[in-house]
Structure formats: structure tokens, C-alpha cells
């Protein structure tokens, strides 16, 4: 519990995306054979604690290690690094995961592989111009093995996504570019699973808008900009 108020982790963003990561990693992601494996890119790398928690649940890293996140003795960095077991891309700088995923998806297709590429982005991350460089390229190469999920928690660092730069038009833009646009409840396992399953036979790359709540499960930070739980709220 001390982790919740002592560490400088992005708790709100981790709690909004954790069910999405759980479904992708524990239910859909295939790790073998290597040439047909699926890839998971956490482009919103600041949600690393959620990724590590799910990788621990999967048994790839130890649960004890989770409590050492960001400690100088720990392998678990503030943002994902490929030297951490189970991590497919070093991230942390927003806007780069989709381009990397486009490269992997194309590489798989060129080798006639069967792997799928999951790229998880934030809604604030949609401000990055590079996302759109990648989005249009994915369509031109017909990468239907690429599935991107946007964690729509409604917040970015300095405020709500609507007040910083309106985002309500995003689904239409993705659709107009040529993506298969789907929606789900990002905290409902069956809703997330259904959306991902529906994407598998698409002829286009798929983007899933997963509606979430920032800080879900911790009332003192839920649906706020707050990242940390203060000690008085530790009972949560």
C-alpha cells in the first residue's frame, strides 16, 4: 500500500488501462511460436505499473518485484524497457508506439507470419502528430493485423482532454482515414474481449475506443487529475 502514496507513479492512468492490459495479455496474446507471436506495445508507457502487474499475474516477473518499482535495485523502470521480461517495446515518449507497431505488423506480413500487433495508446496521446503519420500509413499498407486500443480516460497531464484540445471528433477522423472503428467499456472484461474478437476478421486496421475512468477503484483520485493517494486515504 505504501507504493500508492510514496512512489511517483502514474496511478490514475494505470488504473484506467489495467483491464485492457489484462484482457490483451492474459486472454488474447499468443507467445508461441516466435514467428507467429503477438506483440503488445504500451505506447502510453506511463501506465507501466499496470503492465508490470499483469506481467506478474502471468508469471513473467515476480510479484515481489512489483513493490520495488522505480527502485535503483529493481529491473522495473518508471517506463517500460525491453530488458524487462515480457516487454516488447521500450516506451515512455508518447506518440511512437503506433509507428513501431506499423513496422512490426508490416514485418510480420512480409514474412507471412500470423502474429497480431496490439498498440495501446492514451486519449491525450492523440495530440501527437506522429500518431497521424502512422495512422495513414497503416491504412495504405492494409495492416489488418494491427489492433490499436485507446484508453479514453478523459484526462491528460494538465487537465481534461476536452479542455486541452477537443477529442470528440476522433472516432470520425479514424474512420475517415480508413480504420475499422470499434467501441467498448474499458473496465468490462467481456466488452473488451468482444471488441477485440470482432476486430480479428477485419480487412482494415482496427482502433478500439475503450471508455475508462481515470483512477478507477480509488475514490480519492477517481475521475480527477490526481496521480497519488495521500496517506489519509490509504485505507482505500
Amino acid at each position, binding site marked *: 500500500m505504501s507504493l500508492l502514496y510514496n512512489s511517483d507513479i502514474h496511478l490514475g492512468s494505470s488504473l484506467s488501462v489495467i483491464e485492457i492490459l489484462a484482457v490483451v495479455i492474459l486472454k488474447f496474446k499468443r507467445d508461441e511460436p516466435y514467428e507467429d507471436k503477438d506483440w503488445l506495445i504500451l505506447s502510453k508507457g506511463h501506465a507501466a505499473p499496470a503492465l508490470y502487474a499483469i506481467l506478474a499475474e502471468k508469471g513473467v516477473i515476480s510479484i515481489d518485484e512489483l513493490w520495488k518499482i522505480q527502485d535503483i535495485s529493481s529491473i522495473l523502470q518508471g517506463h517500460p524497457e525491453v530488458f524487462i521480461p515480457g516487454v516488447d517495446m521500450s516506451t515512455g515518449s508518447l*506518440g511512437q508506439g503506433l*509507428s*513501431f507497431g506499423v513496422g512490426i505488423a508490416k514485418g510480420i506480413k512480409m514474412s507471412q507470419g500470423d502474429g497480431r500487433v496490439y498498440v495501446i495508446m492514451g486519449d491525450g496521446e492523440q495530440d501527437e502528430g506522429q500518431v497521424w503519420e502512422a495512422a495513414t*500509413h497503416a491504412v495504405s499498407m492494409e495492416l489488418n493485423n494491427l489492433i490499436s486500443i485507446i484508453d479514453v480516460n478523459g484526462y491528460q497531464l494538465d487537465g481534461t482532454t476536452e479542455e486541452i484540445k477537443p477529442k470528440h471528433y476522433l472516432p470520425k477522423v479514424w474512420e475517415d482515414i480508413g480504420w475499422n472503428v470499434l467501441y467498448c467499456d474499458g473496465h468490462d472484461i467481456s466488452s473488451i474481449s468482444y471488441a477485440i474478437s470482432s476486430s480479428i476478421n477485419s480487412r482494415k486496421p482496427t482502433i478500439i475506443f475503450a471508455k475508462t475512468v481515470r483512477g478507477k477503484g480509488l475514490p480519492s483520485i477517481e475521475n480527477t487529475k490526481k496521480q497519488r493517494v495521500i496517506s489519509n486515504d490509504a485505507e482505500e
Partner: protein
Amino acid sequence: MQKSKAFSSMRETFGRKISELGDEYKNLLVVTADVGESTKAIYFKEKFPNRYFNVGISEQHLIDFAAGLATTGKLPVVTGFAMFLMRAWEQIRNTICRMNLNVKIVATHSGYSDNNDGSSHQSLEDIALMRVLPRMKIIVPADSLEVKRSLPVILNEPGPIYYRIGRDYSPPITQGILNHFKVGEATILKDGSDITIIGAGIVLWDAIKSAKRLEQMNISAAVINMSTIKPIDEKAIESYARKTGRVITVEEHNVLGGLGSAVSEVIVKKYPVPMKMIGANDFGRSARSQRELLDYYKINDKSIINASLELLRLRY
């Protein structure tokens, strides 16, 4: 010299050679951001249309797309104007270098070589930006012949490489002198005992010219081709600093952070001797030829001779 037919340009040689290497390296891909005609990557496209990608005018995506391809075991060669690839410095740092990916970045139109377009297109800062990146290696071939020799070598060298070439002007520097290329190994274009001139790229033409002129003045100047700027050949620098006691660097790049800085870092650690650095100090400008710009900014044989004479007058 600018339009000489005897020696093709480095970009032309790159385009032809990479197309040839495509037969041998089946996983070799060429990726560019809408400058395939300019970088001559177009020759590879003509031969291997399915292994060539134009991602559109999007350099940041270009770098991360190549990083993804490399992750699946492909060998992507990224081509673009040196200046505009710097727009993706952060992608090069945070994805390619952090993950130590096997991506080769061939940066064309470096230095003043995009003479007509002016300062927006000229790249005089790229070596400095690449040098500070952990795991990145930097190669600056002297001429088209060295492009031919070094391209197959860098394809076999694991990890990220920044490979810097110019547009058209490519005087014959290594012809008849060199026949091998090794990453991290400097080569001696001319031996000497009074002063050492270290250069990289086309400026070595002026270095050789100045060494010949100095010879007539009874000054024996060595000329070293430092075609690998990182990892730099510390042994060669130290041994020539000991042998000649004076070092001049010449580069088509800002004097801050480039070859001169790299050489001086070795000199101060291994064997301090007086040095002079010749290179750019500001942004460039438009001109009818690259040669004109090199002379205008005094990155030429006259400057090397003057610097040599000044160093020889020094007592220490």
C-alpha cells in the same frame, strides 16, 4: 569538379550499391520519407519494389516504422536528408538506440551539399547530435569509392549506424590509396612527421591538397581519413599526436560537437598537443556550388595551410 562525370556522386553510388546488395541480403529493406529520387534509393525501388517503402513526408514515423521492421528481423536502411532526419532525433534516441536496433540511417545532402536550398536544408549539426547517443556509430565516407567499400561492411555491423554522405560533389580522395574499410579504423592517406591533418568526408580533398603544398615548403604533413567518427580510432590519434606534436581537424560540420571535438577529447586524455579546428561556426547560405560555400566559409586548403603555419610557430 561539381558535375564531373569521372566520379559519380556519393548518393548515386549509394543508390547503385544498395540495389546490388539487395540480391545478397534478402532481408534488406529501404525506407524513405518521400525523398527516394533525391537520395537515389529509387534504384532499389526499381529492382525490389516490394522491399521499398515510401512512408510519405513523415520523418518521425519513418524512424519508428524502421525500428519495428528491424524488430521482426528485417534489415532496414533508412534514407533521407541529414537535416530532416534530425527532426526525428528523439525517435532515434528513444526507440532505435534505447533498444539497440539494427537500423542503418543513410543521411544524404549533409554539410553544405544542398548548396542551392540554403541553410534550412544544410546539415552542420548532425554529427554532434548523433555522437551523444549511446550505441550509435557514425560513419562519414570520404568519397564514392569509400561508399562502395563501406556499405557492405556496415550492413554486417550490428546495431544502429548513422552513415553521412553528400549530394553531388565527390572528389576522388581514396583512389589508388585505400582498398579496405573497417568500422573504427582510421586510414592514413599520406604519412608525415611535422603535423597531422585529420578529416572526414569530402574536405579530405583539401587536406591532401594542403599537405602537398606544405611538402613544397619542407613541412611534412600526415593526412588521416577518420571515416569512423564514433567509435573513434583513439590509437591512431594518439600515435600521430606523439609523432607530429600538432593536430589540425577539418570538417564540413559545426566545430562544436563534431570531428574536431571528438579528436580533442582523445588528445586531452591521451597526449595533449596544440590543436586547431577548421569547420563551420554558423548556419550556411545558398550558393551555386558546394565548392563555393566551402571556400566562402574558409573550410579549405588555404585555411589548413594557414593553421599549419600558425601551429608550427607555436612553441610548447
